[in-house]
């Protein structure tokens, strides 16, 4: 299972790639494997403001529908349009072409709950 070292992770199995005050996120390799074949991704609307842990999207696989939770507070600035026609990108390339959305991190947002790769690895092993 892949857990890239440069990313941050949440307990809900989302990953974030943070550059300055902008972050790209998706669901982890572990999450896509647990869900199985993904058939639909409902992204958040661009411009939507959200708090940490708020449900901001839905990932639907052949066997389950799961909410995508906001890793930290922010505002959506873009979504991955490719997922509309090819939701399976989340399975084949969860950290790359399978990204879900990007957002501007809210000022003063609490990043302390995010895990690094080692902590996420340990969390998965628990």
């Amino acid at each position, binding site marked *: 299972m892949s857990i890239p070292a440069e990313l941050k992770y949440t307990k809900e199995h989302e990953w974030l790639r943070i550059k300055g005050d902008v972050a790209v996120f998706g669901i982890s390799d572990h999450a896509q494997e647990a869900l199985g074949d993904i058939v*639909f991704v*409902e992204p958040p609307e661009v411009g939507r403001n959200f708090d940490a842990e708020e449900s901001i999207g839905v990932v639907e696989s052949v066997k389950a*529908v799961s909410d995508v939770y906001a890793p930290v507070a922010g505002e959506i600035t873009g979504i991955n349009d490719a997922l509309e026609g090819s939701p399976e990108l989340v399975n084949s390339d969860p950290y790359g072409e399978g990204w879900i959305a990007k957002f501007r991190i809210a000022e003063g947002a609490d990043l302390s709950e995010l895990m690094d790769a080692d902590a996420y690895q340990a969390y998965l092993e628990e």
Partner: protein
Amino acid sequence: MRFLPNTDSDRRAMLERIGIADMRDLFADIPADFHIKTGSLDIPPAKSEAAILRQFSKAADQNRHAGQSRCFLGAGTYHHFVPAVVDYVISRGEFLTAYTPYQPEISQGTLQALFEFQTMISRLTGMEIANASMYEAATAVAEAALMARRITRRSRVVLSRAVNPRYRAVTRNYLSRLDGEVAEVDVQGLATDIEALAAAVDNSTACVIVQYPDFYGSVTDLSPLRQACDATGALLVVAFGDATAFALINPPGHFGADIAVGSGQSLGIPMGFGGPHLGLFACKKKFLRQMPGRVCGLTEDTEGRRGFVLTLSTREQHIRRERATSNICTNQGLMCTAAATYMTLLGDAGLAKVAAHSAAALQRLIDGLPTQVQAATGPHYNETVLSFENTEIRNRFLESAEKHCIFGGIPLEQIEPEAETRHLLVATTEMIEAEDVAEYLQLLEGVI
């Protein structure tokens, strides 16, 4: 499912096994005051099967039903003809189940019927997709309001008072535990007030719900509502009571409805003293994932053969719990098979004939009205409101009609308590012949 009661020796064996002497010991926790003493109920002695049949047949013979009368009743339930083939098909063992099948490997016939039902409902309503049905029209309207709230993330619902009062009551009930306003917009002379409705739609509105043809039978151009929705981001929900209308007039899809919901009872299902009926639910394809209920899909199996499966079940309550799109986890399987059979039998041409005949019967009635009785103005399909000078004359007519085996209409206040007591809601179908209308008019002349 068979009901096989336990015999006395079965019961004795079970009590012995669990170590209890008397069945009443099982209910020992319930205070004795609440026990019914053996022999204390005044129940007559058991009757033979033949005697029961005789007694109930005698009682049933006192029913006055549409089959032995001329039925001018509507208000959401219509006396259209049901070909015998419909009953034959749904009575076959392969179809005779109220449940949607979960196992495609043994349910291809039923699933194909659902798939074709969806296709035909889409075409009839002019909408992109339809689900595999709802229980009946009122809950379908309520679900449409909930769906519009999910899609728009807004909570205000604008509801026309020309929507069937029963659909409105159920919708208000569904919404009563949620935040958000339900703004009802009054009627204009017993018809939809389209301008007032359009004006009531604002930037906080999730949807506007309008009935078409409306509860009073009026057929209104919905374009101003579409424009109001486009300007504000609200959704246009179009409800209907008699689906055969769309074989004659523009369907909801023509006006760009986002969601179309209503009754499918007219499509091969008897009135049956109020049920079981059928709810229809259709919408734009982009809203598929927010649609309640289930959808049957066409696919291929591993060997490339055509197959039908249920899709979207992952959004239902048994999997998604409190985050489910709605709490409907099934459909009206048998009734939607009946509707699919009916539509297949009639085809486009047959349905168009049903609609044309239904509308023509109403026109014939309106054309022959005495001057003392007014029909509502404006276009109608097969239903309208007749207004009498006073309650007494109206009721006299109803009594006289009843004596001649004619169900003359529904006093409006029975369903809309706020209505004046001099109106009669009247509907016609292809079952009403020219001579029935003539007799109706003759009786009308007789009481005024």
